[in-house]
């Protein structure tokens, strides 16, 4: 029922208000004495060198892509897990739904081993 979600909306409003009030209160109450040094990039007290937004390791990108692939496969397991017991009890032995899942996890495992062997999971 959609009405069940109403309290979550209320809580969301409360959370947003809490954050907004805190952020604006500190903006209003705090002193304002900016100086050039205070407003510059913090780099442990020395003059900042170059731009912060530089190239970063390709590994991070790789991890993000692997995450998306595996996470989508995990999402497919949720509906299966929820109906597992009911389905197995109705069917009798539960062998069908088990083998179905084993095939799915087998394919997932193949991809996982491939990523591992190709060095996608190694960080050095």
């Amino acid at each position, binding site marked *: 029922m959609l009405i069940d979600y109403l*309290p979550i909306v*209320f809580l969301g409003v409360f959370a947003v208000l809490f954050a907004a009030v805190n952020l604006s209160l*500190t903006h209003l109450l705090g002193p304002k004495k900016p100086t050039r040094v205070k407003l510059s990039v913090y780099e*442990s007290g020395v003059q900042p060198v170059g731009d912060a937004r530089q190239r970063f390791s390709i590994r991070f990108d790789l991890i993000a892509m*692997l995450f998306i692939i595996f996470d989508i496969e995990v999402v497919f397991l949720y509906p299966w*897990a929820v109906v597992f017991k009911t389905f197995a009890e109705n069917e009798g032995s539960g062998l069908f739904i088990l083998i179905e899942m084993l095939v799915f996890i087998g394919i997932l*495992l193949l991809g996982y081993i491939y990523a591992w062997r190709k060095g996608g999971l190694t960080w050095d």
Partner: protein
Amino acid sequence: MEINLLEQIVIPIIKILFIAHLLIIGVMAMIWSERRVSGWMQDRLGPNRVGPQGLLQPIADGIKFLFKEDLIPNHVDKPLYVLAPAMLLVPAMITIAVVPFGSSITIPGLENPILLQIADINIGILFILAITSLGVYGVVIGAWASNNKYSLLGGLRSSAQMISYELTLGLAIIGVLMLSSSLSLRTIAVEQGAYPWKWNFLIHFPAFLAFTTAMFAETNRLPFDLAEAEQELVAGYHTEYSSMKFAIFFMAEYMNMIVGSAVVVTLFLGGWHFFGLENVGGEGSILAGLISFAIFFIKTGIFLFVFIWVRWTLPRFRYDQLMNFGWKFLLPVTLTSIVVTGTLWVVVKENKQLWIGIGNVVAAFIVVAIVAGMLAMDNNSKSAVQSTPAAAPLRGLDAVE
């Protein structure tokens, strides 16, 4: 659809105000106890001057944060910079909505019993996973908007770590879902029943450990706090933040810890159940409701203590160790746990829970042994390749002597 004003508007709002304030007070209590317990573990006092036992210290801190200069540096992306703390805080706060913090109270005159939970939705776990992953945005956006090298590095590390361990987080729950056949946290807590030997942490012990570990990584706590490794990155993604904006990052982290502990207690440690104590005074009575809430509160508190305890026990991981651990150990262990749970449930006819519990632990040991063996082999072949050129001059020296 007819809306019952009292039951669907007024009572939820009362519950929300109660829980939200409890959460904020909980954060203060955590800040105090973190510092006091740290002090105790390191044989020093910790803050003890503001109020009795230093109890008012978090309030003093909060007031100080409010009156500090709200500095917005020149080089930042201003809208995103201001928005980032809120983007971390709001998901952390909303997640508590689906966690049941007690049984239910029946009040005569009302149609339905009052559930001690803000919203009992049937997709509770999906909601938690969905909302907690939104927290990554707060970290990444805060780090990017700061335009600071430390922030960016911290944000990158943190986001890669959070998404890596989110897989484990999602996979570890599936075994629990299979045996409870529901995504609602209340149903899962009720299914576990009153006695500890029926709770999920024994049936799915490897999954419980994996889930807890992933929880630590998700909240950026030691031993996974590489995002803000002080010696390398100053303060990580919130280096450029000051005043209340900095405090909000901090509060969000503690809220994530509290909510995470509450979720672990619900999923694996029987929720508000404890040897039938939660039914003292009859099911649905106000006394029983209060006792169940107290049990849940104490369990969560003990788990939060473990957070601090671990902080002063385990040193920080190196980044490649962290990634290896998440991808090469936790992921296979949780996957195996699913397969073992499913197979044993179908194959074994009696004492299913007992055999699944034993099977899971045995399978986890086997998987860890295999992975450790494979990693050792990898390392051997790697060091054999690397050692040849380095060893050559040494052998030459030997020959001279």
